[in-house]
């Protein structure tokens, strides 16, 4: 209180921002405004506002609102049952029906050209169909299991690839500059190719099916894991490593005894994230024919079976949600 003004000046605490920061903030804002106009953020807000107003009754209709309604009505109710005409089933055995299934007779109307009169005629037929009440659901679940397997093996392959990659692309463990540059390059390359694109090419190489999917997922994730594993190795506490160097342990031994125990929690977290991501990507990757539930999704979408698409989307959502819960629990225990 009674200190001289000069002494107070020396002890001044300024606010943590200054004119330069205000200028930076203005520049960032300008950048956001410019790029925002290019990605039509304004139109998005406009349409979104319209939809919100029509929803509360302030507007007659809105493009977005009617679009969303159309999607909802076509996806729901979701299709759970499977109906197959008996005539299309080979070696149909009436005495040994599948689980829960029964045979129904349904009336069937068909437009047909009569070759004699050259007139379109309506023909009424009855036909027998095999109804499996949860048949389609089971089919989707089987596909989902296949997708989970894709994701799991994509992760296994990613780990197998990324462990040596991480060793060679960690600056302090790579044997020399060349191996470091090479490994870093490989990691970047793997990461730069999206799964969907590499799957497209791998399908050409390995044919339709899960091989292409597993490899596409594995290679991309190997790039991701390699980078993150390596960065953790580089940032690990050096003190235990120095202790190992001091007694002449080689690099592999030092890494294994003094670094890996330190980074294990992060490694588990990354690997769980990759598993989660791979399962989500595995649902998409089937679109280009690389196996899994995506193939089914694409097929149904292309023949306008939106009810079936609805079932698939619900199952994907439930799976991802369950996976989230499980990985959160594993993380809480080990990390």
């Amino acid at each position: 209180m009674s200190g001289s003004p000069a002494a107070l000046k020396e002890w001044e605490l300024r606010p943590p921002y200054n004119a330069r920061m205000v200028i930076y903030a203005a520049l960032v804002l300008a950048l956001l405004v410019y790029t925002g106009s290019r990605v039509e953020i304004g139109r998005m807000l406009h349409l979104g506002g319209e939809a919100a107003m029509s929803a509360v009754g302030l507007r007659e209709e809105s493009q977005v609102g009617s679009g969303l309604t159309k999607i909802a009505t076509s996806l729901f109710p979701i299709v759970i049952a499977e109906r197959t005409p008996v005539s299309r089933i080979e070696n149909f055995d009436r005495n040994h029906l599948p689980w829960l299934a029964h045979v129904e007779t349904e009336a069937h109307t068909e437009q047909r050209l009569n070759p004699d009169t050259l007139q379109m005629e309506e023909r009424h037929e009855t036909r027998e169909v095999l109804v499996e009440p949860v048949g389609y659901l089971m089919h989707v679940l089987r596909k989902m299991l296949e997708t989970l397997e894709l994701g799991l093996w994509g992760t296994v392959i990613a780990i197998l690839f990324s462990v040596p990659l991480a060793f060679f692309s960690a600056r302090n463990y790579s044997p020399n500059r060349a191996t470091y540059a090479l490994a870093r390059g490989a990691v970047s390359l793997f990461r730069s190719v999206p799964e969907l694109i590499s799957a497209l090419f791998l399908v050409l190489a390995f044919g339709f099916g899960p091989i292409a999917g597993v490899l596409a997922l594995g290679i991309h994730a190997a790039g991701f894991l390699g980078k993150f594993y390596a960065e953790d190795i580089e940032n690990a506490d050096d003190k235990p490593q120095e202790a190992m160097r001091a007694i002449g342990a080689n690099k592999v031994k030092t890494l294994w005894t003094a670094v890996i125990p330190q980074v294990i929690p992060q490694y588990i977290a990354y690997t769980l994230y990759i598993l989660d991501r791979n399962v989500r990507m595995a649902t998409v990757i089937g679109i280009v024919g690389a196996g899994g539930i995506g193939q089914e999704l694409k097929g149904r979408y292309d023949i306008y079976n939106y009810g079936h698409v609805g079932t698939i989307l619900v199952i994907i959502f439930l799976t991802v949600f369950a996976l989230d819960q499980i990985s959160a629990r594993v993380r809480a225990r080990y990390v």
Partner: protein
Amino acid sequence: MLTTDNSSRSEAPAIEFRDLDVRFADGTQALRDVRLSVPRGQFCVVLGPSGAGKSTLLRAVNGLVTAGRGRVEIAGTELTTRTLRTLRPRMAMIHQQFNLVTRASVAANVLSGASPAVPTWRVLLQWYPKHFRDKACELLADVGLESKHLQRRVSTLSGGQQQRVGIARAFMLDPIVMLADEPVASLDPRISRETLELLKRESQQRRTTVLCSLHQIDLAREFGDRIIALRQGVVAFDGAPGAFTDSVVDRVYGTDATRTGRLTRVQAENAGVTATRAVVADATMAEPRKAADAVTTEPRKAADAVTTEARTGAVA
């Protein structure tokens, strides 16, 4: 003094510094003209103010810093990049910050001390040979830990217990040279004494040569067979603890020894003085070279006389 024929090679001093100079990349001279000979089984305490080069002296022994000029010999073998691989497993180190893997178990940490002598695949599988596993248990019992601690994470132990684990790890390969770099700087006085007692007992049992840097003069006098004091990279005193009188302390630690001594100890405890370089730079800036030389050359002559006595006396 230096015997070259092979029959008496084992009688070569455990550590021999021959005109050792160490200069860091930034140009700081950390050690200058260090000429010392440490016989087998001696408990040698290294003293000196922060930044005097204590850590550097220790780290020059196992090659964590490399000599600019001069050389270091371990049991008659010169330390070079080629001999480093075989010499390092014969030396062990105890660190101020313990340098343990705190997330790993006590057992894993102690066993890691044997890793240089174990094939890599065994280390990868964490499957150490039976005799090493038995040895780890034996050592842990020796340093006063209980069997219930074996699988416990190091992070759950107290500082004193952690340093006991560090000591157990260091003795895994029966080293001929033990380098203790301020082993008690982060421990309280009672635990410090206990830890040094333990270190001394274990090294006497095995006839291990110990080079131990300390900040506490009283502990140095109590535990050292011999005291080596450094000041600005130069040996300022070398002799028996009895000769390390208060006037020598004044010369080593500066004009106001007690104050600087306490100051540096507090600093060491607060900041965990590992960044020796920065401190060395500070010291040289604060005091011009010439003044430092004048201080260090004087006690040197007196100390040399005592050293020869200490050498002959301590071995017997």
